[in-house]
């Protein structure tokens, strides 16, 4: 049996970049997703399900970097390597493109069904869109109560879990794809599947059929 992929997290990333309209790296993405998870956790809701641990630069989960890379490689985000003096190296900056918008348009109905959760992300973007990753980190460090224990980030030990959304028992709302939406998103987010389906439709339109398989 194929393992379930958390396509929900990919949807949150794409939605975030589509709302931001400006580019961002993995740090900025992680901090905004953390702020969303924290806000939802306090409101007994589950959105993205990244288990955030305390890293030197604040709450983070390395899966965010690989998810961003996958979305970039699959052309759902634009990727631009940018040189940073601070690290004396290049780092990828992601931003939305036509595919981001097209994908979100094709799941509009799903986003509407879960508008209460996505409106939380809208509000966060309205407040923090102009803040850089570093500024968001400082902001999170300045919070007096955050995460599962509702204490300052400084009170969590390095590498310990700050928040694990899946641990929330009896959530009021949870963004979780049912089987039909899961199968749909799986196709929409995989260009080779989407392209294969398109070829099938074109065959039907052009009358390229067969009655036999062997």
């Amino acid at each position, binding site marked *: 049996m194929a393992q379930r992929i958390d396509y929900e997290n990919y949807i949150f990333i794409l939605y975030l970049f589509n709302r931001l309209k400006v580019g961002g790296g993995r740090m900025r993405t992680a901090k905004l997703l953390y702020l969303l998870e924290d806000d939802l956790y306090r409101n007994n809701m589950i959105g993205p399900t990244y288990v955030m641990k305390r890293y030197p630069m604040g709450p983070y989960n390395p899966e965010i970097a690989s998810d961003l890379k996958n979305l970039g490689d699959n*052309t759902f985000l634009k990727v631009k390597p940018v040189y940073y003096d601070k690290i004396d190296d290049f780092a990828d900056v992601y931003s939305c493109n036509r595919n981001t918008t097209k994908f979100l348009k094709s799941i509009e109905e799903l986003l509407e069904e879960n508008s209460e959760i996505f409106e939380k992300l809208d509000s966060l973007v309205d407040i923090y869109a102009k803040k850089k990753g570093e500024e968001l980190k400082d902001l999170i460090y300045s919070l007096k109560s955050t995460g599962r224990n509702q204490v300052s980030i400084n009170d969590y030990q390095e590498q310990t879990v700050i928040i694990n959304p899946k641990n929330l028992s009896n959530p009021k709302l949870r963004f979780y794809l049912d089987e039909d939406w899961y199968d749909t998103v799986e196709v*929409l987010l995989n260009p080779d599947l989407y392209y294969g*389906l398109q070829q*099938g439709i074109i*065959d*039907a339109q052009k009358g390229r*059929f067969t009655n036999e398989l*062997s």
Partner: protein
Amino acid sequence: MSDVLPVIYTKNFQYNFKQIPEKDQKRIEYDLTHINKQDILRQGRFKGELNYLRKMRNGDFRIFLTYCADCYEEFRNKINCAICDSENLERIIVFFIYPRKKLYQPRKFQQIDIAKIEF
């Protein structure tokens, strides 16, 4: 029990079908050629922009198909099938098959700009 419905496959389906393991081929071919009206109406639909397609789960495979009688009223303009015929709606058209993904990962081949793909 109602009669088994005739099945028509796109060439694309036929090509993809031949790429899957033989033991899966046999099972899938058997299942497709034994579908009746009740069976097809029990299959779920994709959602959003793919809502005109029904999906059949077979092991780790997903199959995209339509039942013409079901498609004709609501969705025929979305697919624009060359053989669409109001006098011949008791049949199934199978478009595509894929193995369910184990990982979401970068494509290994040529990148495709999905914004350019129009149905």
